[in-house]
């Protein structure tokens, strides 16, 4: 038995603290200038980047919002290991989960922040739809797009990551659908990493004018399991009056990737947004998701499917902001955790004084498959109107061993029983996902995460 005298040290006595070293958490001005040299852009874009970088330098010195980040352990993160890719575009074909599973109206692929593939059916052009590479279309349609780009949904000043993104955004997907136009076939966007140490700052901007309808399926992937990547992304969904947008983002990086994303949907009156967020990959992912219901009777349905394994850490910070009368939001997240994985969900429904007759709902359910996994679910309400219905809830539980025993007593193996229970757990959120191919893909991916041979469809 080691004998030691009683020592009592208070905090902050010349000890290292958990405060982050700025060299580890961000990029300096030398890397910004080097990055700018690789871009051939109009002056207004470069100026916007410079203002964002100035903002970013200030935000780097400040602590992150503790409400959002205190449970997200960024100590191991080292930004110095990553740089935007300046080399030739990598034309290698990437394996994807969604791209060949259904008929699409168009595909766009970004590898290491550069566009490597684009195709679209002719009908899109005839309808006046803009779909393709964001920087190219932003340059050619400045008057139309500049009022939206990082001005209505995600703003550079939101926090360190949004400012970082605004200064360094590398490329991305744009979808603009004019008034009363319906894009019948879903569109597909792929963001991939193929080089070790790549930092990619992809941006997705979707604008639906009044009465328009569209579906975009987006996925992220890494070419191999070995490469380490950094994604500081941004998603802006702007849904005009009476419009309907279905957007799916399937995050499937390898387990050496870091994923930080600011995502926001702004929904105008009588419009609806169906938004599905899937978290399967990454070493650490933090998603800040805002749903802003701006117009009377705007509706948003948000679905979350997360399966974390090994030492993955996946974190969500969601806000359903009701700003107008008669708005409706419905958020359902389901998380499955195994091994030493950790999931954090911090959700908030905020109702402004003007947003009477609001109906807000949020729920997060977590299923733990091991003793070492950990899930922190924190729902919240902030209501300033007096005639609303807002409900929220969170559950966390282990797999019921009696259910496993029951299945095994009927000749089902433990693995199959576990699969049935996990599928059953996710079923409620699968049923809400409006695109069949996504439901099928998720089901197959869940099997492979459980270590069960995927069934070829």
């Amino acid at each position, binding site marked *: 038995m*080691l004998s*030691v*005298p*009683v*020592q*009592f*040290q*208070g*905090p*902050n006595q010349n*000890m*290292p*603290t*958990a405060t982050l070293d700025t060299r580890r958490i961000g990029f300096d001005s030398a890397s910004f200038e080097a990055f700018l040299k690789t871009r051939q852009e109009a002056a207004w874009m470069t100026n916007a980047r410079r203002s964002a970088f100035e903002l970013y330098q200030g935000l780097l010195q400040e602590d992150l919002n503790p409400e959002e980040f*205190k*449970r997200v*352990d960024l*100590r*191991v993160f080292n930004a110095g290991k990553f740089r935007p890719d300046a080399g030739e575009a990598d034309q290698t074909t990437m394996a994807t989960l969604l791209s060949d599973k259904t008929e699409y109206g168009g595909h766009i692929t970004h590898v290491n922040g550069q566009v490597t593939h684009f195709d679209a059916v002719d009908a899109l052009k005839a309808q006046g739809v803009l779909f393709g590479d964001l920087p190219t279309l932003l340059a050619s349609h400045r008057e139309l797009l500049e009022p939206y780009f990082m001005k209505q949904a995600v703003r550079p000043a939101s926090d360190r990551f949004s400012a970082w993104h605004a200064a360094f955004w590398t490329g991305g997907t744009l979808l603009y659908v004019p008034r009363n136009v319906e894009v019948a076939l879903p569109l597909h966007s792929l963001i991939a990493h193929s080089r070790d140490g790549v930092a990619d700052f992809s941006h997705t901007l979707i604008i639906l004018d009044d009465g328009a309808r569209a579906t975009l399926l987006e996925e992220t992937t890494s070419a191999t399991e070995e490469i380490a990547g950094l994604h500081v992304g941004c998603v802006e969904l702007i849904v005009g009056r009476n419009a309907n947008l279905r957007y799916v983002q399937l995050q499937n990086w390898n387990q050496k990737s870091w994923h930080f994303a600011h995502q926001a949907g702004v929904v105008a009156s009588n419009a609806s947004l169906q938004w599905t967020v899937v978290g399967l990959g990454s070493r650490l992912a933090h998603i800040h998701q805002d749903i802003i219901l701006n117009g009377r009777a705007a509706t948003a349905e948000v679905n979350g499917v997360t399966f974390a394994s090994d030492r993955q850490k996946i974190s969500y910070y969601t806000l359903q902001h009701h700003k107008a009368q008669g708005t409706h939001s419905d958020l359902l997240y389901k998380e499955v955790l195994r091994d030493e994985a*950790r999931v954090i969900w911090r959700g908030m429904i905020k109702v402004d004084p003007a947003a009477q007759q609001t109906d807000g709902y949020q729920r997060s359910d977590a299923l733990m498959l091991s003793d070492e996994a*950990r899930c*922190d679910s924190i729902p919240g309400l902030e209501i300033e109107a007096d005639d609303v219905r807002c409900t929220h809830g969170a559950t966390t539980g282990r797999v019921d061993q009696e259910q496993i025993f029951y299945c095994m007593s009927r000749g089902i193996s433990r693995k199959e029983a576990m699969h049935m229970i996990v599928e059953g757990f996710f079923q409620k959120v699968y049923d809400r996902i409006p695109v069949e191919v996504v439901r099928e893909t998720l089901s197959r991916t869940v099997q492979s995460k459980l270590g069960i041979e995927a069934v070829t469809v």
Partner: protein
Amino acid sequence: MERVIGIDELQPGERRSVFVDDIPALVIRIESAYFVIEDVCSHDGQALTDGPLQDCSIICPRHSARFDLKTGKALCMPATEPIRVFKVEIRDGAVWAAMP
């Protein structure tokens, strides 16, 4: 095993934040003994970094959960689960640590 710190870099009662197998860890010297623990409280999942030391234990600076530095055992509420304690060796004038 990974080299985490030179033995002379810490005085008795001092600590240093390090990484072991890419896990945030804390190396603590108490008299001539060195301990390496995972720097995460098992109660709220946040850092123990600046927590006061008492006997051979560390107290979480937020909710005062206390953990044994040798075994990782939770010694008082609100923690009920242990923290990870790394294997430690002293050789070549340095402290080496590895996953338990």
